[in-house]
């Protein structure tokens, strides 16, 4: 010690290099668990030189020795950089007085005027085992060459025995020992069938730590820590762990004088196997269709390389899922891109560390796509659905929506791209039924116009209308016909009467009236006979009508002659009674002839 100090002094003096102050650490160390009556060390370590150390009160323990101070220092030059470290330690030897958990409060020290406090500790004191432990060396065993099961065993400890599929459990393989373990020869680990497993990185060197198990103190070594993600539901059994250990054991040799002074030790091989462990895996509750398979707690972030590009320029959309859970097993969320974008498979990168909380870290999905045609597009938010095993619910995180403006390409580059798709068929994105109709005209059931009462009624009305019209017309025709017949019948009578009237005028000698009566007799007769109004009659018409009524040519000429004579005589009287008489006779004759000929 003295020499070391001297050395240090010489070095410092010779080199007189600046000493860089290190981070001061002041720690307290003690075993966590001790047996009642066991002696143990409580040490304070300081990596600097300090003053006025204030120690905590140690009323719960017997202080057997201490504090004893020790100091060490080192000085090194690496690549021209020198560093120096000093270490002071204060040591106590304590003995536990009673069972229980006893806290030891912090100690404090002053270094370079600054106040530093150490950590605090809690020491658990348990009832000692029946065998007094002799400083790590066992008392001779009853049967040499074998190790009792209670002294050396291996356990697979699972932190949860019931969990959801996709959730994780931590399996720890620990070896418990009360004997002097020298090493392991062969370790057979279970292959965790039914799980996806991820080992937690442990220090290479297995260090034994004191732990209580069933109220006894064991030296415990953690061999392996593995995160287990069940891939199937039901009860999954984790197989046995089998370890061949080498144990140093004191052998009872035949008693001799020397044996009392020197113990004989032998390496004994002991094989320990663990009990199988069962884990119940529950299926996940029914979830949404776009469930990503992620179980844990996650956060989603999204980013895009560019929102304004030219045709056929690549865009990368990146989704980052950060959190803890079964990161490795997350499926890429589905990106809903506009239909004529060219999309490549997403690039998936994950980065995580395994810990008791599961896999911590992030997984990123990079979607590369090319917009092929100019326009404004919207990439809808991507839903990332994970199952939160803590709350037993599905959680949806949505990324942000991106609007992309695609400008027309410059023509030279896209030409070769587009030539492949020179002409495109209309792309059918999906097939579904046509949508419901909203404009509904409801009819009471069974009311079809065709064949209804009204339908037939319309026919009937039409038909009866026609029949009525026809009958009405027929009646009119009949009536008209009657009038004509009556007139026809009366015609000769009227004519005769008028001729008689003319005869009267002839006798009385009134010439004008006589001719008038004869003319009227003829016109009236023809009018009645042929149903022609008198006003419409003249000589030509009468001649034509008579010809129509099949009167002979002679009678027509005679009739015309009479009319001519009468009209002439009316306006140029003269000729006397003789002429009138002649006319009268002629008129009577023509009349009777006409009556015979026309009908």
């Amino acid at each position, binding site marked *: 010690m003295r020499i070391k100090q001297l050395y240090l002094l010489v070095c410092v003096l010779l080199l007189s290099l600046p000493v860089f102050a290190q981070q001061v650490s002041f720690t307290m160390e003690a075993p966590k668990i001790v047996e009642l009556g066991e002696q143990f060390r409580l040490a304070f370590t300081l990596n600097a030189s300090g003053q006025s150390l204030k120690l905590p009160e140690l009323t719960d323990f017997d202080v057997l020795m201490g504090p004893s101070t020790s100091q060490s220092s080192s000085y090194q030059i690496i690549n021209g950089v020198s560093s120096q470290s000093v270490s002071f330690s204060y040591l106590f030897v304590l003995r536990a007085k009673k069972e229980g958990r006893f806290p030891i409060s912090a100690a404090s020290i002053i270094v370079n005027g600054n106040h530093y406090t150490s950590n605090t500790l809690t020491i658990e004191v348990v009832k000692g085992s029946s065998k007094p432990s002799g400083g790590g060396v066992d008392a001779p065993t009853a049967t040499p060459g074998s190790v009792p099961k209670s002294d050396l065993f291996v356990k697979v400890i699972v932190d949860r025995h019931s969990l959801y599929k996709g959730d994780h459990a931590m399996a720890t393989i620990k070896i418990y020992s009360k004997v002097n373990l020298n090493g392991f020869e062969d370790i057979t680990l279970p292959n965790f069938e039914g799980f996806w497993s991820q080992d937690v990185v442990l220090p290479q060197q297995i260090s034994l730590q004191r732990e209580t198990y069933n109220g006894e103190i064991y030296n415990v070594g953690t061999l392996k820590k593995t995160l287990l993600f069940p891939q199937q539901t039901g009860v999954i059994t984790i197989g046995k762990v089998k370890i061949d250990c080498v144990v140093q054991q004191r052998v009872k040799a035949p008693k001799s004088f020397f044996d009392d002074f020197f113990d004989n030790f032998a390496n004994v091989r002991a094989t320990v196997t663990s009990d199988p462990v069962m884990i119940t895996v529950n299926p996940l509750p029914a979830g949404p269709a776009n469930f990503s398979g992620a179980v844990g707690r996650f956060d989603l972030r999204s980013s895009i390389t560019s929102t304004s590009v030219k045709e056929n320029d690549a865009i990368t959309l990146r989704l980052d899922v950060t959190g803890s859970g079964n990161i490795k097993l997350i499926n890429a969320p589905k990106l809903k891109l506009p239909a004529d974008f060219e999309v490549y498979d997403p690039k998936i990168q994950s980065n995580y560390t395994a810990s008791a909380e599961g896999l911590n870290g992030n997984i990123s999905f990079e979607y590369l796509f090319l917009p092929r045609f100019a326009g404004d597009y919207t990439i809808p938010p991507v839903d990332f659905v994970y199952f939160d095993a803590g709350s037993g619910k599905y959680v949806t995180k949505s990324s942000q929506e991106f609007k992309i403006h695609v400008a027309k390409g410059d023509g030279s580059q896209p030409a070769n791209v587009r030539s492949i798709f020179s002409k495109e068929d209309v792309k059918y994105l999906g097939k579904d039924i046509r949508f*419901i109709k909203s*404009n509904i005209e409801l*009819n009471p*059931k069974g009311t079809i*116009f065709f064949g209804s009462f009204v339908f037939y009624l*319309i026919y009937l009305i*039409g038909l009866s*209308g026609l029949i009525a019209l026809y009958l009405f017309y027929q009646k009119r025709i009949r009536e008209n016909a009657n009038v004509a017949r009556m007139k026809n019948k009366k015609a000769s009578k009227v004519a005769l009467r008028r001729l008689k009237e003319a005869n009267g005028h002839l006798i009385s000698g009134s010439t004008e009236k006589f001719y008038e009566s004869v003319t009227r007799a003829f016109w009236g007769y023809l009018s009645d006979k042929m149903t022609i109004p008198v006003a419409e009659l003249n000589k030509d018409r009468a001649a034509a009508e008579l010809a129509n009524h099949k009167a002979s040519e002679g009678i027509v000429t005679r009739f015309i002659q009479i009319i001519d004579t009468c009209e002439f005589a009316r306006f140029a009287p003269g000729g006397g009674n003789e002429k009138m008489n002649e006319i009268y006779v002629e008129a009577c004759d023509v009349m009777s002839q006409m009556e015979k000929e026309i009908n």
Partner: protein
Amino acid sequence: MKSLIKKYSLLLLIVIICSISKGQSTTVKDSLAAANQSYNTAKYQDAIRKYQFVIGQGFEASELYFNLGNAFYKSGNFTYAILNFERAKKLAPNDADITYNLDLARTQIIDNVVSLPEPGFQRWLKQFISSQSINFWGIFSITTFFAFLFLFGQFLLSRTFRTKQLSFWFSVAAISISAITFTFGSHLKSKLVNHNSAVITDRSVRVKASPSETGTELFIVHEGVTVQLTDQLGEWVNVSLPDGNKGWVKESAMVKI
């Protein structure tokens, strides 16, 4: 005077019919709108219930059956979707949407029944008849009947021979057209009124050669197949499939369209 009374009574009848249907449909219209709303928000079971309520009130429309069929389709019940599309098609034989959805629904059922090709003229005639609604043919028939009445009236009342001749032949043509379109209409109506087709609703039906349980089993049809009913004997119905197969099936295995 008589014709005036007739006219007014007809008018009155029409008004009464209209007012009855209007009065009833105020509540029905609400549930119809609610049904459409349920369909829009993808609550298809809800929509089905509401459409069926409207039908239960004694109303019908091809669109109503169409929407109900859509709701059944969306809820995965393709058999009833087919049934309702068939009912809609009966009311509107020439609606392209109904035909499209019916064809799509038929792709979802188990059996793929290929219909026999019909003779060209018969197919053409059927297509022609069903290209228009019943009421179209009815109105067409009435219109041509009135044209006939007019022409025949001309024939009866005109005096010149030429008019008489022309109007006679035209009236003969008009009454023929009227009679033919009336036949078309009554053909469609008989198809509508007589339930002579049905949709199989049982999952799987064994078609027998005779109307009894012990009859020889001819073939198996599954739900969703549309069959023509040709005969009935008690609870047994003689059906013929679109592919020409015939056999006897229990009436309870199907729903008439």
